[in-house]
């Protein structure tokens, strides 16, 4: 089966700095793929190149066979992006946020309204339908971002640190949603700082550091390979990337 995403020799330079230094990976259909790494490792840069928010310096990345170099607009129709930072429209209500966003994908208004209400129901925000987004808690905002990412029925969902800054209840709720989407066969790219999250959700993952992939496999494979005497994925992560502090 052809992969949904294929990155080959992907590079991003900022002057002398090689933020992403030749990365290769594939994401299969229906797979939840994890991109792990300490701050400044090149995760966000990789995601931004995939979402066509940053031009690539070298190599290529394709989504459903479309190249970011040749058809960024075509790719953007296929993506659902749930960003790290909350960038909802503070002037709009919950439902209006989804409707305005769906316009960007040429979704006609009645269909947009239908999808918006369906997603709001599914993400347990129906009490807040007409409320301004400012009234939402952090966890609710994240759920709304996730709902927004699904409005165009994407082929690939990109979750960029979806649970950073959330309380344990909200985190669990987000995980539950990701599991449900996985069951429905949605292909997902997940970046996270929480190794526990990757262990729970990802079928396969890569660990990046200094712009390169330093290890890849299923969570189980990585644990067995690096810590045959037992441990968890976080121990593997720290063993591979070192314990010194990283700053972005």
């Amino acid at each position, binding site marked *: 089966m052809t992969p949904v995403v294929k990155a080959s020799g992907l590079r991003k330079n*900022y002057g002398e700095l090689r933020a992403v230094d030749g990365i290769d990976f594939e994401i299969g259909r229906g797979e939840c793929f994890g991109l792990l790494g300490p701050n400044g490792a090149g995760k966000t840069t990789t995601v931004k190149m995939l*979402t*066509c*928010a*940053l*031009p690539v310096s070298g190599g290529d990345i394709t989504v459903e066979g479309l190249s*970011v*170099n040749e058809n*960024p*607009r075509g790719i*953007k*129709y296929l*993506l659902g*992006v749930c*960003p790290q*930072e*909350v*960038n*909802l*429209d*503070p*002037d*709009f209500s919950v439902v*209006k946020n989804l409707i*305005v*966003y769906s*316009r*960007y*994908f*040429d979704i006609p208004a009645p269909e947009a309204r239908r999808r918006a209400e369906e997603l709001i129901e599914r993400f347990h925000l129906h009490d807040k339908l007409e409320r301004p987004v400012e009234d939402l808690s952090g966890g609710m905002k994240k759920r709304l971002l996730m709902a927004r990412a699904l409005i*165009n029925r994407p082929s690939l969902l990109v979750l960029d640190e979806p649970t950073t800054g959330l309380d344990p209840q909200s985190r669990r709720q987000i995980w539950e949603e990701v599991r449900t989407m996985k069951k429905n066969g949605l292909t997902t790219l997940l970046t996270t700082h929480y190794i526990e999250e990757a262990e729970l959700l990802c079928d396969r993952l890569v660990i990046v550091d200094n712009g390169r992939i330093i290890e890849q496999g299923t969570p189980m494979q990585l644990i067995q390979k690096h810590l045959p005497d037992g441990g968890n994925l976080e121990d593997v992560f720290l063993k591979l990337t070192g314990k010194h502090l990283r700053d972005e």
Partner: protein
Amino acid sequence: MNNPCLLRNISYRAWYMWRRNVDVSLVTWKTNVLPPLLEPVLYILAFGFGLGAYVQQISYAGRAYDYLAFMAPGMVAVGVMFHATFDTMYGAFVRLRYQKTFEAVITTPLSAEDILLGEILSGATKGLFAGAAILLIVTLFGLAAYPSSLVILPLAALAGLMFASFGLYFAGIAPYIDNLNLPIFLFINPMFLFSGTFFPLDGMPGWVQFIAGLLPLTHVVNITRAATFGTLSAPLLWDLLYILALTAFISYFSIRKMKARLIK
């Protein structure tokens, strides 16, 4: 997107950004509708009636006019400038830096150029709306000749594009929001005062007239005034040409500058 040619990345989707901004304006309409309607009333009261009581007649283009009639078209042009420039200057800056709106929209099928053209279009819409609102007030005071004053509407749309582009450019070069005081001090306020808005430029020293001739607002004021006086004439096509050329130039560079900030 990755195509270096800006024009090729522009699509109908710019209207989606325009609609988003217009939708926001409709949510916050009270603060958007009342100032353009009330500001000119204040100016007309203060300058027209207050100052006009002392400066009863003013000589312009070989004819004498009431001071109120002279300054009223200037207020229309100033309204377009203020509302269009401020909409993109502060609005786009806030959407870029604080609300992260552009970051959200850039992952949808809109290109950076679509987003930024949408910004210019919605800024121009605000300018057009303000111009039309002030023209309405000026008309109610009996200070606008018709049908020639109808020319002011398409002119306000064009001037709106130009000033919204300037605003976007300033937003694109300002590292912090406080830096936006600088273009207000160096560009907006001098235009407000020295574009023939409150007094004819004929009496000014030659070098002031020369600089005023470079200021975009001067040319908008020239056409607006001739329209409200009912004295539109062929030489004003030079003013129009200047506005068109400057609009093309600054809209291109503002999009280029802001794009560089959006996509690194």
